[in-house]
C-alpha cells in the first residue's frame, strides 16, 4: 500500500497492512510535525505532493528495499495538506522474519523517501513562512 492522503493517517491500518504471519518483526517509522524550527514556533505546516510521481518514486524505493532485505510486508502513507504540531505526516511499516532487517529496511525507506519523493512542505511561523530547504542561506523567504 502506497497512499498520499489529505486525511489523518490510520497508523494501525498501516501496521496491519505490513504485517505477516511469517514475520517476527515489524518496524514502524512515524514522522510528526515539530512545534519549533530554526528556534521559532511553528504554527502549522502545508504539505503538497506531485502525487502520481510520489507514488512512482516510493514504489521504486520499496522495490529496492525488497531486493536488499527479506521483507514480508510493507506500507507507506504520507499525508498532505495542513498539519499542526504533533500530527503525523508519514507512517512507514515493514515486516521481516527477523528484527534487524526490519529496522534497516524501514530506515532505508524513510531516508530515500526524504531524498527522492516529490513532496514539499512550507513552515508557517508567526512572522512569515518558508518552503523548507528550497533556497540556500535564506532563513525565511516571505518575512
Amino acid at each position, binding site marked *: 500500500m502506497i497512499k498520499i492522503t489529505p486525511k489523518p493517517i490510520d497508523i494501525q491500518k498501516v501496521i496491519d497492512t505490513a504485517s505477516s504471519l511469517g514475520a517476527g518483526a515489524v518496524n514502524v517509522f512515524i514522522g510528526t510535525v515539530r512545534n519549533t524550527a530554526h528556534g521559532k514556533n511553528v504554527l502549522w505546516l502545508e504539505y503538497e505532493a*506531485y502525487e502520481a*510521481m510520489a507514488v512512482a*518514486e516510493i514504489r521504486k524505493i520499496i522495490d529496492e528495499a525488497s531486493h536488499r532485505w527479506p521483507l514480508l510486508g510493507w506500507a507507506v502513507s504520507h499525508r498532505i495538506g495542513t498539519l499542526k504540531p504533533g500530527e503525523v*505526516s508519514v507512517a512507514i511499516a515493514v515486516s521481516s522474519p527477523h528484527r534487524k532487517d526490519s529496522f534497516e529496511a524501514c530506515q532505508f525507506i524513510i531516508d530515500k523517501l526524504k*531524498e527522492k519523493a516529490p513532496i514539499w512542505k512550507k513552515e508557517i511561523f508567526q512572522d512569515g513562512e518558508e518552503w*523548507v*530547504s*528550497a533556497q540556500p542561506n535564506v532563513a525565511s523567504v516571505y518575512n
Partner: protein
Amino acid sequence: MKCTVKTFGITRDITGAREVELEVAEGATVHEFKQALFKQYPRLASLTSLFIAVNHAYADDGQVLAAGDEIALIPPVAGG
C-alpha cells in the same frame, strides 16, 4: 513546441501559476528546456536545486523532450 509545465512548492510561488507554458525547439533536451525556463523565470535559478520530471520520473539533462510529455518542476523536496 509548446510545453505545459506543472509547478510545485516554491516554483509555483515564483511562477505564480499551477501550470506554465514554455516554448522550446522540437527535440529540445532537458538542459535546453531549463535554459529557456531560467530565461523566462530568472528567480528559479536561485533555488538550492531544480530537477525536471518527465512522465513522473526524474529526467537527466540529456533527455530529449517529446510533444505530450508530462513535464514538472521539482524544487528541493522535503517530505517525511
